[in-house]
């Protein structure tokens, strides 16, 4: 039996069907265009993406090894005023995340104060004992953060997830804007939108500001570490390295030399100062972590701890975006900033707690249940759209390992129209703003990546499961 989802907040149209102020400029332009223009431009854009090679690889899919993430031509628009409030909230949250990480790997005041149960750290693979007592260069743990936001009303933005390990998708944010500007130049002369294209420059500057003690160059040498061309996000790794003017390296290019991590160049081995790694902790150093890894660098953790290199993001940051930790974020923000959180969490039941578990089991059909360590929208249950049989099966899993799950209400995610064969139609969206952290401060790129569920009524926006993306605009004042 399928239940209908609660009515959602539409970001373009209000309840009477009139256009909200954020979309006024866009809609006026839209209505003046010939009916088939957007569709025509849509296929132009797809050809453009194929040619430029903006694809992602899908694991375990031999035929479609490289796929495009569908791009929708209708922008997602946020007003300057909304953005001001959002960015204040994001900055607060990211400041708290870094302070939290420093504390976890040092005195653990938050545990001592009783605000965070010690059991969340014990046996948690995301918590790295190797990082205890060590402070990364510049005191920065999460150089790059992606905060996933969902919206349920005019002023109701909530954090769905913090991505503190290696958030991806920023290349889509950049290319989506490039595409929109190439397809509809005159639109951008009519509606003033805040620039995103200097993100790579800011990223390079931000990373360079975190050079390790051993760096003796005026301009630190930055490299991007990729698992290689078969990784699903390879395009992004290459894109960012290219845009930053940084080297794109693989594990096999690197080795330890004179207490530094050096890359094999045509002239010999050259030390790297800052490594923006897009390789998970587990694969970073076969000496310290997974001994079978060929993606990392043997001995890099020793060099790191001795101040020979900066690793961004720092190893062990994954503990901060663990879904079990997530439910404590309101307390964490307050503990480290002394302020009330500006951005709210989605209400979360921790199934490890007996009372919460009982509630979740009693209301399974209304809830979304997620694995604590899962990602990419896999292994989750969306109660209202699941069949009786799926619910029963999930209930068994939940009872067997309650500590493995959290549950949240099924949110009425806001909608933004997409272009369909039948014209504009509302679809659910989320938003991932990208945040850079350096000793010089926190830098948020206006907007971010909007992911959109292309299927009618669907709440799953993940690109690996049929989601698409949109250009995300923050209007200029």
């Amino acid at each position, binding site marked *: 039996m399928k239940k209908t989802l609660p009515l959602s907040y539409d970001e373009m149209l209000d309840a009477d069907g009139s256009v909200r102020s954020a979309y006024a400029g866009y809609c006026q332009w839209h209505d003046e265009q010939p009916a088939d223009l957007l569709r025509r431009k849509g296929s132009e854009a797809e050809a453009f993406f*194929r*040619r*430029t*090679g903006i694809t992602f690889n899908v694991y375990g899919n031999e035929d479609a090894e490289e796929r495009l993430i569908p791009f929708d031509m209708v922008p997602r628009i946020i007003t300057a005023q909304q953005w001001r409030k959002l960015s204040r909230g994001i900055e607060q949250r990211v400041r708290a995340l870094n302070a939290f990480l420093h504390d976890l790997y040092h005195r653990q005041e938050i545990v001592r104060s009783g605000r965070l149960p010690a059991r969340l750290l014990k046996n948690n693979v995301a918590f790295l004992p190797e990082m205890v007592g060590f402070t990364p260069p510049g005191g920065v743990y999460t150089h790059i953060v992606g905060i996933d936001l969902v919206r349920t009303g005019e002023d109701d933005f909530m954090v769905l997830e913090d991505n503190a390990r290696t958030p991806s998708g920023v290349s889509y944010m950049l290319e989506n804007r490039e595409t929109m500007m190439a397809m509809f130049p005159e639109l951008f002369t009519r509606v003033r939108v805040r620039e995103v294209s200097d993100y790579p420059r800011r990223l390079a500057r931000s990373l360079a500001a975190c050079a390790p003690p051993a760096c003796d160059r005026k301009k630190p040498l930055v490299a991007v570490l990729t698992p290689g*061309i078969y990784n699903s996000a*390879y395009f992004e790794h*290459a*894109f960012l*390295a*290219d845009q930053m003017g*940084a*080297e*794109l*390296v*693989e594990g*096999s*290019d690197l080795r330890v030399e004179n207490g530094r991590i050096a*890359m*094999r*160049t*045509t*002239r*010999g081995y050259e030390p790297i100062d800052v490594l923006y790694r897009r390789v998970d902790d587990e694969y970073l150093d076969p000496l310290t972590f997974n001994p079978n890894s060929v993606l990392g660098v043997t001995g890099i953790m020793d060099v790191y701890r001795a101040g020979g290199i900066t690793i961004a993001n720092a190893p062990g940051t994954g503990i901060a975006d663990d879904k079990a930790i997530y439910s404590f974020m309101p307390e964490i923000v307050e503990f480290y900033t002394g302020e009330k959180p500006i951005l709210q969490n989605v209400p979360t039941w921790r199934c490890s707690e007996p009372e919460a578990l009982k509630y979740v089991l009693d209301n399974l059909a209304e809830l979304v249940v997620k694995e604590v360590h899962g990602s990419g929208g896999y292994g989750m249950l969306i109660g209202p759209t699941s069949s009786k049989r799926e619910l029963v099966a999930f209930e068994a899993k939940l009872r067997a390992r309650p500590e493995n799950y959290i549950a949240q209400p099924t949110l009425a995610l806001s909608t933004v129209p997409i272009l369909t064969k039948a014209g504009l139609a509302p679809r659910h969206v989320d938003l991932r703003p990208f945040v850079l952290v350096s000793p010089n401060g926190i830098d948020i790129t206006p907007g971010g990546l909007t992911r959109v569920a292309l299927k009618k009524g669907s709440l799953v926006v993940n690109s690996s499961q049929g989601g698409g993306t949109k250009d995300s605009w923050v209007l200029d004042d």
Partner: protein
Amino acid sequence: MLGRSANGIFWLFRYLERAENISRLIEAGFRMALTRSASDATDEWRSLIVTLGLRQAFEARHGTEYTGPHVFNFILRDKDNPGSIMAITEGARTNARMVRGGITREVWESVNDGWMQLRDALARPVTETRLGAVLDLVRRQSTQVRGAMEGTMLRNEIYNFARMGSFIERADNTARILDVKYYVLLPSVSYVGSSLDNVQWENVLRSVAGERAYRWLNAGRMDPRGIAEFLILDGRFPRSLAFCYSKLRSNLASLAREYGNEMHSHEILRDADCQFHTATIEGIFEQGLHEFIGKFIRANTALALQIQRDYRFTE
């Protein structure tokens, strides 16, 4: 630059060059086959497979049935042929993806675009009617990438490695064509002056896109010695061995200037390049064309290996 990137650039351009040269070979073979009797056509197709070093692989697949469609489909797209034009183009693109940061957007897009078009064109077996268009496509891709490189890339080490890849490969290809066809160019009593010789000679030239240039330089006279001289020693013809080596020399010299030191490969190249300035075609025929070519191919391979070693292409 990274040693791995130098390797990627070098091979990207080797593969593109190889695909282009193979397409010229097929075209020349196809033309020959069209103008000959059935059994001569079979010989021609077989010789093409031999030139490409594919005899064993081909016969494992088709036996000794050297028909045109079998041969050119095998060379273009057969999955059992790891050196098919499709596989080579795929290899070129993989290398381009790997060194994406070292090449300009224009170069990347022409590689990627060419690969996409070729993948579509080779999705089904190629018929004789479609062959010309497919071969055109391969050559156009190579030309387009070269143009994009010429117009947008910095003249630095990356460019030097790209050019060295192109010319090592081109020299190898020209030499291999000579190696298989040398007997056509050897003085022979029975055929001298016959029209068959003329066609064969022209075919050698066509395989390296040199028939017009040669005619233009020689006012239409065809003679084997002149053709061999043209392909080996004429520094004006961009596919001659002498031309390839003068380019290799200037690119390796730029590297030495940029890096401030010479490597072992510079020494090898100096010796190899020298011979093109002192050698005469009479001397080469005296020494034996076949021996000369064989020695050249081995030395060329050794040079490529030394470049890869000197510049740390791999660990």
